[in-house]
């Protein structure tokens, strides 16, 4: 019985592993140059599909995601660097199109607060620990 459950759990975990690797890139989109293709894929993994919003365009089957994948590939082919391509996209769709929010003045709190809370947490633990030790 335990063994059976174990196998099922392994099976479910394996499905997760492969599900994460799924991508929507269609064969006709792929660039011939593997180096350039890899670059295009790495960029698309960071770009949000504005239609599905929680998927990257690399994983999304939405028509707009396909358009953007092709557009990114044509810009890679034209010799544009990553920064220029990201700028092209954020100029049109805003920072929201980046799956990872950039570190800016307006997103400062977003990035810094987890560390502040961590410090507060550490402080509280040590403070109460010391107190209880003194007792």
């Amino acid at each position, binding site marked *: 019985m335990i063994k059976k459950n174990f196998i099922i759990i392994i099976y479910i975990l394996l499905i997760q592993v492969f599900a994460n690797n799924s991508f929507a890139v269609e064969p006709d989109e792929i660039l011939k140059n593997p180096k350039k293709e890899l670059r295009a894929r790495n960029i698309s993994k960071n770009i949000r599909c504005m239609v599905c919003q929680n998927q990257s365009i690399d994983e999304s089957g939405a028509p707009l995601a396909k358009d953007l994948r092709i*557009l990114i590939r044509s810009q890679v082919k034209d010799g544009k660097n990553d920064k220029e391509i990201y700028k092209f996209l954020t100029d049109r769709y805003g920072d929201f199109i980046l799956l990872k929010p950039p570190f800016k003045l307006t997103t400062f709190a977003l990035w810094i607060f987890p560390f502040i809370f961590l410090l507060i947490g550490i402080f509280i633990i040590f403070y109460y620990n010391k107190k209880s030790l003194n007792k």
Partner: protein
Amino acid sequence: MFKRVFTIPIILFLFVLSVFFYLLIIERDPLDLPSNLLNKNVPDFEAKSLLNDEKFVASNEFGNELVLVNFFATWCKPCRDEHIYIKKFSKRGIRIIGINYKDKSANAIKWLGKLGNPYSNIPIDKDGRIAIDWGVYGIPETFIVDSKGIIKYRHVGPVTKKIYKKINLLINEIEK
């Protein structure tokens, strides 16, 4: 001492809860994203026109008077739903440019013949490239472009009665 350990988390929890409750009851559509093109110039583009042989050149069309830009397609059901409101704008005397998004031209001509054509000019966006320059992610989308050629408002989704009123008020405000 023991008391404080319990009361602080409860107060914090209630605070977080009330923030979530507030976000729930205010009218907020998380899908309605602000446009990055707000208060910027309209993107420059050229395209074929649907109803005549003249080339559509954006720089000639914007910057003279207030214009509404409406992305539409015949395959898009919400576009059909909002069509009566687009016609109302046209009756009010507002210039509307309809960008025909990834559509079959023959279908679009038939559709407009049947439902009426509120558009003063219809550039064709065959492959959706123009829409990307406008930051469009789901048609129908409607933009208000002021008389200086600057984008003042963007609405994603069909124009409903409520949105129709809102756009009318905005136009009045912008035209002042």
